[in-house]
């Protein structure tokens, strides 16, 4: 490194001669930070999304690389949020990449003290069997006066406000067709 290069690399020199007289931008940048690249620049793609917490509906841009979420930022185009996110929305990358997230089915046998593993397809099949059994056991065709009831009060469901409209639609459609009436969500509380 020559003397000229050394002097030109000196922040004060850069501050006095460059475009950053206040020394808060380019003049203060270190070699290390100059070499860094933003995760948002190296992402494979960006999905236009919406924050999963409250109902304000702030726009999110979800950056991903190699099938993993690398960054979530506010969407500056959104007329609702203008690019801003609150502490929760800002932490949503930590939410979706949390090591505490369960990625395997867990099964607790009656009277057991611990979880067991269970195959997802087996779980789905067991749940279907239990629905049909509960339905058969508690089915009501008609009331005392012979008026139709077409229902089971042996099955309940709670939740929906964190889910998509399309999901709520299928949930209600399927439960209604099986005669399960006791379907509720966060809007009731």
């Amino acid at each position, binding site marked *: 490194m020559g003397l000229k290069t050394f002097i030109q690399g000196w922040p004060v020199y850069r501050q006095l001669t460059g475009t950053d007289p206040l020394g808060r931008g380019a003049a203060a940048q270190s070699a290390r930070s100059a070499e860094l690249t933003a995760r948002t620049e190296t992402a494979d793609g960006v999905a236009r999304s919406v924050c999963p917490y409250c109902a304000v509906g702030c726009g999110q841009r979800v950056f991903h690389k190699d099938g993993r979420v690398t960054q979530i930022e506010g969407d500056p185009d959104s007329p609702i949020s203008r690019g801003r996110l609150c502490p929760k929305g800002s932490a949503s990358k930590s*939410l979706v990449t949390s090591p505490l997230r369960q990625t395997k089915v867990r099964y607790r046998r009656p009277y057991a003290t611990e979880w067991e593993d269970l195959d997802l397809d087996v779980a789905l099949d067991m749940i279907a069997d239990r629905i049909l059994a509960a339905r058969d056991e508690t089915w009501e065709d008609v009331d005392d006066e012979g008026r139709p009831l077409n229902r089971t009060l042996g*099955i309940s469901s709670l939740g929906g406000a964190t889910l998509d409209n399309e999901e709520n639609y299928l949930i209600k459609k399927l439960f209604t067709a099986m005669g399960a009436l006791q379907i509720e969500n966060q809007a009731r509380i």
Partner: protein
Amino acid sequence: MAEAHPVGFQWVMEAKKRGAKVFHVDPRFTRTSALADTYLPIRAGTDIALLGGVVRYILDNELDFREYVLAYTNAATIVSEKFADTEDLDGLFSGYNPETGSYDHASWQYEGQEGNTTVRGTGKERDSASGLEHESHGEPVPAQTRRDETLRHPRCVYQILKRHFARYTPEMVARVCGIPEEKFLELARAWTENSGRERTGALVYSVGWTQHSVGVQYIRTGSIIQTLLGNMGRPGGGILALRGHASIQGSTDIPTLFNLLPGYLPMPHHADHPTFDKWVDSIRHPGQKGFWGNSRAFAASLLKAYWGDAATPENDFGYGWLPRMTGDHGTYQQVLNMIDGKVKGYFLLGQNPAVGSAHGRAQRLGMANLDWLVVRDLFLIESATFWKNSPEIATGEIVPEECRTEVFFLPAASHVEKEGTFTQTQRMLQWREKAVNPPGDARSELWFFYHLGRVLREKLAASTKPRDRALLDLAWDYPTHGAHAEPSAEAVLREINGFDVATGRPLNAFAEAKDDGSTAIGCWIYTGVYADGVNQAARRKSRHEQDWVAAEWGWAWPANRRTLYNRASADPEGRPWSERKKYVWWDPDAGEWTGYDVPDFEKTKPPSYRPPEDASGPAALAGDDPFVMQGDGKAWLYAPSGVLDGPMPTHYEPAESPMRNPLYGQQANPTRKIYEHPINRINPSPPEPHSEVFPYVFTVSRLTEHHTAGGMSRTVPRLAELQPEMFVEVSPELAAEVGLAHLGWAHLISGRAVIEARVLVTDRLTPLRVDGRIIHQVWLPYHFGSEGLVTGDSANDLFGITLDPNVLIQESKVGTCDIRSGRRPTGPALLDLVGDYQRRAGMPPDRKVPIVTTDVLGGENAAGSTDEQTPEAAARDGEDHA
């Protein structure tokens, strides 16, 4: 708002920068208060007294927007001479039936209509949370009513309202709410001065209003003010509900709720809706004005979307397959039924009732008495682990080796691992693109329910039972893609939007709905979200490239309208009320409505249009009837039907209060829904004895850094670190009175539970001088539970279960408790402590909560009479709760 909806709050700050004055009313000084011009501390549960004071201020000083009120509201309409007010009956309206704890609405009707209505005892409507159907669908009211345009007739709505609120004076507001008179007057002056032709004021609330035994009437009072001041349907006005989950609006519109079908069509009731025709007529009220007149087409199209080819005009589109309500099937009734062993299986879909619902112990004991439980969530929440890690394990009430509940935990996909729409709090749908695949076994609910339906149908394929036809004939053939056969969310959205059955063409507007089976529509109010075959919810035109209404970002129901009832932003002749507040107006040259938003009115119906005498449905709406979903096209200052607890809001004390109601002998809402179950002990309130055992008022709300029951925040390291511990905020005065040390421990006791928390002594809470005495309030966050990175006792454990009669939402923003220094006991000693309080407060398991506390009805239901069977119990005995 700054705490729980911080990014939305930036618009309040924008308004403030432009000169708006911001008032914040809250029991606790928060970040919102810090940024407001004026902060008003209030006793929790007294908002109707405060808002009623504002109504009185407007009417006494004739500060209403008179032209708007005369043209667009029912202020001039004459009410039946049979109507008697709470001023006449010490807190009850006419028509109260103490046997059922509900009202007959006949005497509340407009003059000449007393005999014309279908109104009856409303205990049944309360159980099915159907009261508000009439408000949203319009109760049958005649198009022509007797009116007095001078507003001087003693029985016109304007005068009735004036008398009803006459005693809600600034002195009374101070006495009930603890708000000093001068602060109240500052609010009332600013609100009225900022309303009229040139200016509008906005009202914003959250669940601080809905979670009360009079929650609907809180919002009604706000609506009355905003209507009197001409702030509805106009830019910068209105009432904004800040809702708390990403798609809680969507899950109400496309309801996972027991009493509703998509698009606010009611779930049929076994006695009231025996046939398709009767069901439809109960929604559209033949002959009535307004857009619900088309509901036969909406109903037929929904059933067509459900059952496809199997839904025909001949079989009433499969109406017979729908399950029928017989009473209250809400979440709290379900939980009590679980405790009583009546429910076999339970699905939890991204909800955590062990922490998030009132009376956590009842929730957990209910879950411990199921055959099976399916939990679908991102994390192992408290509701998944109640059998090994819950307060009841410590007390010995749940023993894992004796708990039979079989638990399936199925990991769910997060919001970035699936595509679909959320509907945010202003009715706007926004499509989310998928970023990555869900990890491991994690799947979307779309995947789970599609494949669950597929498996159920396979298992039943050979069935000949009539009950299985509804499943086997269900339209369930969604295209799938990818390695896991993920169903197409866009295909589901197209079905929600609706399509022409013959061609498959997506419909552009709900006006295209047909009642002959030629259209299928999953949710008629969402028709248009797939207009022209394009996913309109996916639109992302930058805010920099469009005007401030931003109509090309996402899609809002109905018809991409951003402000409802915006016809009211123009005067009766269709001209803007002022240049400054111009929004939607009539263009006489073009012969149509135009403006910045999609007009909420028939596009070419001129302001001068007057309907022919025999018109019904939309054609019966005059050119100056802006409230197009109402049965008379008018905003209702007085609700002759529909709101089950009264045609006008009335201040009642919360179900648990340390005070006697200063306004009426009737202490609390006489129509509130109570559950007399041994687990649901309600703390005594005056005029009952022993209320002093629970002398303090507690309220709960959110922290900025946590979300609801903590499942999406106590599991996130950054958020857990920002708010690491359960705490209780107390005023310095209360800390001195009880002997609490800052950062020390305290425990709080109610008739249900005892919980502990670290003490934060702060002047964010202040003792209130109320009715000649000092009331102390404490505040708690409700986010904590026993799982996650940070844990703590759950504040919701303290609450009992008492519900608003209109919507069956629980009172969980106010209750009474005791607070003591130090940590709570553990193990069986904890139950002993709660038992000791129950004994001292006179709360045996079979305690009857007195409902009527005024003797205006005569001796039998006089104040303090606790021996009689209560109205609620009598009502329950007479009905089928299965």
